[in-house]
């Protein structure tokens, strides 16, 4: 009986040591590759090509409340990770139109990381991000003017 218990204890000890070393190797050799900034940049370009064909944004077609993803032909399921915001400013820097789709909470999470409040151990959960400004021709009914289109994309983690 005593020998049996002793044998089991030895087996358990060896197994424990093996699991500890395996766990350490998992942490040491594991490496996360983050491509979400690239995804954000690609999506921004895709949305631009969709909203502003040939550099012209027609506010009569792109009405307030236009759903960005379905208008551009993306299915809802594949866009759950993304938040996209577009806004148009006229020559007087006034916002004339705004389009938003996705979870705005991810933008808030991005701001937390940018403020430096997030620790290094959760760095891999930082959302991917891209923002840019494009000069476009805006058509609003019979009027036409040069405006600035801002595109902002946030990509949540895939975990």
């Amino acid at each position, binding site marked *: 009986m005593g020998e049996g218990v002793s044998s089991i204890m030895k087996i358990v000890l*060896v197994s424990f040591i*093996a699991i500890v070393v395996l766990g350490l190797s998992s942490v040491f*050799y*594991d490496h996360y590759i983050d491509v979400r900034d690239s995804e954000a940049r690609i999506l921004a370009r*895709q949305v631009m090509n969709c909203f502003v064909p040939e550099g012209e944004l027609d506010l009569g077609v792109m009405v307030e409340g236009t759903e960005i993803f379905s208008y551009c*032909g993306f299915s809802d399921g594949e866009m759950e990770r993304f938040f996209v915001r577009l806004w148009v400013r006229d020559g007087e820097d006034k916002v004339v139109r705004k389009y938003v789709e996705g979870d705005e909470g991810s933008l808030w999470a991005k701001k937390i990381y940018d403020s430096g409040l997030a620790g290094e151990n959760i760095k891999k959960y930082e959302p991917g991000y891209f923002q840019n400004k494009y000069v476009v021709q805006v058509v609003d009914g019979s009027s036409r003017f040069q405006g600035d289109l801002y595109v902002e994309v946030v990509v949540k983690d895939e975990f």
Partner: protein
Amino acid sequence: MHTVIIHIILIGIIFALFFMATAGKINGRGVLQQVLEKQTALLIDSAVPGMSFEVRKMNQNGIVQKVSLKDGKIWIVVEGLNSLKGYPYFSRYDIEVVEELDKFVVFVK
């Protein structure tokens, strides 16, 4: 004597399992798989209709056994390592993967 032999056999089995598991981690198959899946996903994200690109089976990231698309994700089997999570892609177009003799071809339609 019998007890010692049984101990040796059991410890040998445990170490064999342990070395098999760590070998998988140390040779970096998971990282190779991650690189392939994410590269391919980014290519699909940025592709336009009419484009196609190849994933060679004899790849610099390892031998690629399978490339498939399911549930909006790309799944690549590398060096016998099955993909557990895949990587999501997005596209407005139809994407198809065709297996050929020495490569997988991804078509964007």
